[in-house]
């Protein structure tokens, strides 16, 4: 059957072509398509008038269907060239072989032409694609340019684009504002010309760094100055970078300028504030110390004087007249101090409250310490009028001189401080020069005082006792509890010094408390073999609001009778309105504890005797010493003593004289009116032992 024959041929042809090219059709569709071509070919071969046009058409349609593989044409010709002449359907055709050849030739020709056209079309398409791609890219570039222009124009920072020599090609308006000229005017200038002459070099160096190629951009961490309007400096942060062409070669410089003048000024102000006292405008302590450091930190032969001042009674002004007046006074003080050292290389500082310091770097014409100190107080003595009130202040001054060479500024300050404190205790308007020896001694003493609390805890501080005897018959009437510090290096430190050291740190209160308890305990343990325990207090102890409860505790813990205890308080403590001494006296008296007035020796002390609780006095040890030193016949004091003691005795108040060294002294005091003696003549301080009952006279 013809159809079967053609269908079979179509299948064969499809099979041959299938490996030659990819055609997006199913096998069935391919066979159908090729079948259609075959029909055309057969028709042409069978036609009465032969025309090879069907061949051309078939070739063209093969190309159209994408049968354009390398082998597609040759396989086609192979298959058809064998099958067509042998086709049963075509057996009767005249000149079949020739017609087949002709047909296949036309097929090949049609194929080739179609292929050529197709290739040309495709090449054209791909070139159009190339053009379109370039067009797309150009549009993107344009959009990017537009964005850049917008950014450039509207940026809040100044932008300059220059060539590699630094000649400005473009500048935005902000840059113009920063340097105070229209942006257009800047074109043609050199970028480094925009800078302050001192900063030009830094800027140029930054660019050299860029060109040498490691970083494409640099942000300078220092602010540089540009020249603004009227040559005013404009502080700016800069970032510089390079732009490159397509080949990666640098072609342009970009400088981005951020105006930070305000920030800079703010920074300056802040830094000023942190180093200066807000009220007076003087340098503050921090600034002063660092100035001091730089002056004495260098090894120079020049000498300096350091003054530390404290205004006398300034609190009175502040509290009495108010803060505002106080502030104005401080400002006038500051101005006056500055005028005192006006001609010198000096720094005046306010350390706080009413403390000032002055550092003078000596020149050949600098006045000496005394002159300056006097001058300071002379200046301050001039009254200043505030709200119609004239007032003046004075100051205590501690001075230390340093004659050249390196030293520790903290040491100098400390020296001035300690000197100031020392002179202050002497009154107002005092000045003094640093005494290194005294200083050494003072430091040793301070160290001692500071270590006392732990020494006490370690048991280095103990109690000892000294007996008191009736001068008439030598009968032991009591013992005084005394402190004794067995210091490992200094040896034994006696009672008075212990108390004084303890007073410095406030240790005296717990120490006193312990002393009371311990003494009562020890005496109680010995069965109260002596009638009375004398515990003599310092002023601080006397004023202690807890004194009475301490005493109660001591008595209770030791199970002792209050009458066994005699507490001594210094006359000065009782004289004062401040503190609880008077109340304590009364309360202790109520307890049944006896009170002695210590350091009795002056007229005011008589007034204290009015207190009914005071039944005993101890003569001021200074008085005893004075009498001991003087020749008894000449001394005014010696002559006055009996008169001093008489009224006391008349009242039945017991008089104790202590620190008696010799029997003769004891006798004298007995004659002068003392009842009880204490001192080396009788026994030195020592451990508690059952006493000898009588001293043989």
């Amino acid at each position, binding site marked *: 059957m013809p159809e079967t024959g053609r269908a079979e041929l179509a299948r064969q042809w499809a099979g041959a072509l*299938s*490996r030659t*090219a*990819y*055609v*997006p059709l*199913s*096998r069935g569709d391919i066979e159908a398509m090729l079948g259609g071509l075959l029909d055309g070919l057969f028709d042409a071969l069978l036609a009465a008038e032969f025309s090879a046009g069907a061949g051309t058409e078939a070739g063209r349609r093969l190309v159209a269907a*994408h049968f*354009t*593989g*390398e082998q*597609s044409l040759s396989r086609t010709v192979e298959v058809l060239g064998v099958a067509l002449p042998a086709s049963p359907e075509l057996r009767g055709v005249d000149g079949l072989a020739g017609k087949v050849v002709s047909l296949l030739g036309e097929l090949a020709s049609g194929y080739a032409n179609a292929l050529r056209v*197709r*290739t*040309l*079309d*495709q*090449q054209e*398409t*791909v070139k*159009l*694609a*190339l*053009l*379109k*791609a*370039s*067009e*797309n*890219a*150009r549009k*993107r*570039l344009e959009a*990017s*340019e537009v964005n850049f222009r917008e950014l450039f124009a509207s940026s809040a920072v100044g932008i300059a684009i220059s060539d590699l020599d630094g000649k400005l090609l473009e500048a935005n308006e902000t840059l113009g504002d920063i340097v105070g000229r229209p942006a257009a005017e800047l074109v043609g200038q050199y970028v480094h010309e925009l800078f302050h002459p001192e900063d030009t070099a830094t800027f140029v160096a930054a660019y050299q760094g860029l060109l040498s190629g490691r970083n*494409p951009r640099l942000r300078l961490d220092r602010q540089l100055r540009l020249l603004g309007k009227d040559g005013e400096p404009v502080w700016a942060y800069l970032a510089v970078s390079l*732009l*490159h062409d*397509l080949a*990666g070669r640098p072609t342009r410089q970009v400088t981005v300028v951020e105006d930070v003048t305000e920030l800079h000024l703010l920074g300056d102000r802040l830094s000023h504030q942190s180093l200066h006292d807000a009220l007076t405008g003087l340098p503050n302590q921090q600034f002063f110390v660092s100035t001091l450091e730089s002056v004495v930190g260098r090894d120079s032969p020049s000498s300096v004087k350091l003054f530390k001042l404290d205004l006398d009674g300034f609190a009175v002004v502040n509290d009495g007249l108010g803060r505002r007046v106080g502030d104005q006074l401080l400002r006038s003080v500051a101005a006056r101090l500055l005028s005192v050292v006006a001609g010198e290389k000096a720094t005046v500082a306010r350390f706080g409250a009413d403390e000032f310091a002055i550092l003078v770097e000596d020149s050949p014409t600098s006045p000496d310490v005394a002159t300056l100190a006097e001058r300071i107080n002379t200046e301050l003595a001039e009254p200043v009028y505030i709200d119609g009130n004239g007032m003046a202040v004075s100051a205590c001054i501690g001075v230390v001189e340093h004659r050249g060479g390196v030293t520790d500024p903290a040491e100098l300050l400390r020296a001035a401080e300690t000197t100031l404190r020392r002179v202050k205790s002497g009154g107002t308007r005092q000045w003094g020069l640093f005494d290194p020896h005294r200083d050494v001694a003072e430091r040793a003493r301070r160290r001692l005082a500071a270590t006392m609390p732990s020494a006490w805890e370690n048991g280095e501080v103990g109690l000892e006792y000294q007996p008191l005897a009736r001068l008439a018959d030598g009968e032991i009437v009591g013992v005084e509890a005394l402190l004794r510090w067995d210091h490992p290096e200094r040896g034994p430190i006696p009672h008075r010094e212990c108390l004084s050291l303890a007073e410095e740190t406030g240790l005296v209160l717990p120490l006193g408390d312990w002393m009371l308890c311990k003494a009562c305990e020890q005496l109680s343990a010995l069965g109260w073999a002596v009638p009375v325990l004398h515990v003599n207090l310092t002023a601080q102890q006397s004023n202690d609001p807890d004194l009475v409860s301490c005493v109660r505790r001591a008595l209770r813990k030791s199970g002792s009778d209050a009458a066994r205890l005699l507490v001594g308080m210094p006359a000065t403590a009782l004289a004062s309105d401040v503190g609880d001494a008077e109340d304590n006296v009364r309360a202790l008296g109520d307890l049944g504890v006896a009170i002695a007035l210590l350091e009795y020796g002056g007229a005011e002390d008589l007034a204290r005797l009015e207190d009914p609780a005071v039944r005993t006095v101890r003569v001021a040890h200074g008085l005893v010493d004075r009498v001991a030193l003087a020749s008894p016949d000449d001394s005014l004091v010696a002559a006055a003593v009996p008169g001093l003691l008489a009224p006391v005795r008349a009242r039945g108040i017991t008089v104790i004289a202590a620190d008696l060294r010799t029997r003769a002294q004891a006798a004298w005091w007995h004659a002068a009116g003392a009842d009880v003696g204490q001192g080396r003549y009788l026994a030195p301080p020592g451990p508690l032992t059952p006493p000898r009952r009588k001293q043989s006279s």
Partner: protein
Amino acid sequence: MQEKLAWVPDGVNVDVPSSARIYDYVLGGGHNFATDREAAERLLKAVPARDMARLNRAFLRRAVLFMVDSGIRQFLDLGSGIPTVGNVHEVAQGADPSCRVLYVDIEAIAVAHSQLLLAGNDNASVIRADLREPESILDSPEAQQMLDLDQPLGLLVVGVMQFVPDSDDPWGVMARYRDRLAPGSYLAMSHFTPDGMPEAMARAVEVFKTTQEPAYPRAHSEVTRFFDGFELVDPGLVYTVQWRPESPSEVGDEPHRSNLYAAVGRRS
């Protein structure tokens, strides 16, 4: 290192051969330049590139038709290259004219070419994007217009992952696409492999090094990994010529010479 300037039009490069244009040439097309043809000739000396291309393209057609049969009406074709024989939209729209296709390629000329071809087709468009940035594609205005990610999608990653090196974590990239696909979506993939003709593919890799896209053929297990989270449909991951051939006779005796693995997976 000098920085590249952003405004250099990258991608418009006719001096370095492009894999898309080489592909077109070995398929018998004319959309290529002399450098592409020269590289193609070198490739043909190493591997049977014409057969590889033909069989790969045939797989793509069968995969698309399979997806259409499974109900898919929208396609995302990553690395679509230049419009050559049997484009996805022609195949899909031939089966159902309502099918929508979004083509994606990174190469500027390929994209421009597709733009020219697709002018006037409302159901197909092309964008220039890097397939390694899924979000840049899936969230683009064109994707929002052409595709509906709430509906099943046919994701075509045919002959393109072989140009993404391990260092770009192609499996991670694939996972990011997978996670945006609605259930019922399909993934069709083909990929160069050295498993069949190791020395030949090694020589091919050398040729590709001289093009814009160096190639990274992968072994069976590595290609299977791309289908994590997908269920492979029969016959699983096989050579292109073996994947659901129209008739068994087409497979031939040496399927490994097709040098690409192919599979389709379903996202459940």
